[in-house]
């Protein structure tokens, strides 16, 4: 056997010595990134989110080749994509449903973090980057939904931009600034397209910071305890294989919707072209905004409603300091676990309330759930962490397994 390196190997090493691109990837999500060996399937959702981001950017770029951001042409250009452009229907359905699946993935990812205490020291900045990504995603999805210029596009944009008019003094000028006119109109559509194209790349940048911050302490794990080096395995091939399997399962569901129920998550009213003179009787945002919409409507005062809605997301930034428990994983927190699942159900109920007309039961329920939403963060988080006796933590990730084996 010759010890001589092949010419390809030498060329590769020559290049790596000058720009260590492959080493960089290998260190980030490859064989040089040691990850705890006990990660469960909830840890798949980070890479799934990354996959969805790439899918959205790719399908979006090809949509943009056939889309026209003008109020008189946008709706028709989307219909043309659906009917005449080769595979346009597929690209658009992948993009429209992709937004929904992106949010499903990210919501599970966030709840995973809440349950296993991934926001606690030393991962606060990692958590912040995640919230920034979430905010940027919401802005992107909101502006994307305006682009087809249907009735829901138009009136959703009107209601959401008008939220800013609740601010005293600067409110009205801000809204005019956002619109570039006296209402949602062609200038608004134009800038939304520009920003809708831009923001996903801002998200890519934020993801880089998110992963960077992840690599300082390394991944959390279902036990929430520090993983000793002996309890870690290389990300590649172990988690790349597991992520790939999870991706396959995910794609089955995603494409089942894209192929067989492509409009199930959308509102039929968005197939009616925007009419600035007729408001639909029941305006609802896309499902992923419903819980926050319910919070907005639960409060009868305009300014307070808007503040509560934004506060519902911003509170996540201070969560690491609201939670007084030092135990990360809810598996060891008997009380917190109950309140966590209540919070999860509370979120679903809020979503339902947001989809209903704001009167009668949905309104009352929406108010109760809005109360619990904030109660969970501002009272339960500090008080339970302080009062509860956590179950004993294992000494290491392997120790329970070793004990069982004895």
């Amino acid at each position, binding site marked *: 056997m010759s010890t001589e390196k092949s010419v390809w190997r030498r060329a590769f090493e020559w290049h790596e010595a000058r720009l260590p691109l492959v080493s960089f990837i290998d260190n980030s999500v490859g064989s040089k990134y040691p990850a705890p060996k006990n990660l469960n399937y909830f840890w798949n959702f980070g890479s799934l989110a990354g996959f969805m981001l790439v899918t959205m950017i790719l399908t979006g770029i090809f949509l943009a080749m056939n889309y026209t951001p003008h109020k008189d042409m946008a709706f028709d250009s989307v219909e043309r994509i659906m009917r005449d452009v080769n595979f346009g229907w597929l690209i658009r359905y992948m993009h429209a449903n992709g937004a929904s699946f992106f949010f499903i993935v990210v919501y599970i990812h966030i709840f995973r973090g809440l349950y296993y205490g991934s926001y606690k020291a030393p991962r606060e900045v990692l958590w912040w980057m995640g919230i920034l990504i979430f905010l940027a995603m919401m802005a992107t999805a909101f502006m994307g939904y305006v682009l087809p210029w249907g009735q829901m596009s138009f009136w959703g944009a009107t*209601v959401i931009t008008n939220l800013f008019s609740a601010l005293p003094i600067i409110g009205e000028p801000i809204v005019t600034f956002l619109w570039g*006119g006296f*209402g949602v109109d062609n200038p608004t559509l134009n800038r939304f397209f520009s920003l809708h194209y831009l923001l996903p790349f801002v998200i890519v940048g934020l993801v880089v910071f998110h992963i960077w911050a992840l690599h300082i302490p390394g991944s959390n794990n279902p036990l929430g305890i520090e993983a000793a080096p002996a309890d870690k395995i290389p990300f590649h091939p172990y988690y790349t294989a597991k992520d790939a399997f999870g991706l396959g399962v995910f794609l089955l569901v995603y494409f089942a919707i894209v192929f067989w129920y492509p409009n199930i998550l959308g509102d039929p009213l968005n197939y009616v072209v925007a009419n600035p003179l007729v408001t639909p009787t029941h305006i609802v945002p896309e499902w992923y905004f419903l819980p926050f919409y319910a919070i907005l409507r639960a409060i009868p005062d*305009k300014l307070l409603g808007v503040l509560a809605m934004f506060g519902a997301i911003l509170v996540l930034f201070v969560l690491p300091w609201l939670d007084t428990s030092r135990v990360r994983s809810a598996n060891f927190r008997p009380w917190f676990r109950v309140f966590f699942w209540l919070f999860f159900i509370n979120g679903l109920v809020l979503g339902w309330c947001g989809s209903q007309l704001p009167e009668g039961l949905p309104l009352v329920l929406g108010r109760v759930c809005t109360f619990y939403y904030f109660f969970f963060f501002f009272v339960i988080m500090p008080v339970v962490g302080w009062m509860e006796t956590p179950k004993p933590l294992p000494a290491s990730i392997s120790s329970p397994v070793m004990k069982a084996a004895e």
Partner: protein
Amino acid sequence: MANMAPAHTPESTGADGETRRDFLLHTTVAFGAVGTAMAVWPLISSMNPAADTLALSTTEFNLGGLQEGQAVTIVWRGKPVFVRYRTPAEIEAARNTPMNDLVEPAKDEDRVKKGKEKYLILVGVCTHLGCIPLGTKAMDARGDFGGWFCPCHGSHYDTSGRIRKGPAPENLKVPPYQFLDDTTVRIG
């Protein structure tokens, strides 16, 4: 230069412990910041309404065809304007409302033109989040106060377009308008 005073060396310290070098650094940063702000301003400003959008457009409308109790929607600057020919009962209801029943107190007299009290002209945009309230078409729901009802989040307006119930904080706006003759009105 032998006679160079210490106060002129870059490292010399002033009264507050700041060296000349610090001062130069701070002024440079300050000028840089102001310069950047000035460079960004045109970009921000370009997003505000353009001159053609701002050019105040006007709309003329003939009220002659309108019957008592009827209302129409006309378009001004791309937005709906409600014109309602009010019945005497509606005018009376608006005038007899005590001021302290109102969220934003305003006399009905100040919301219409003198001698033309029967015509109520309003910008048809809900002051909550910008939906178009119902109440102009004959079959529309008019809310608890007989004026307009916004279905988006449930705001009720009275027969003077004043907010009475629901999340909207202000009365429906009265656009600038004038009567050109007995039945022609120019909005804007």
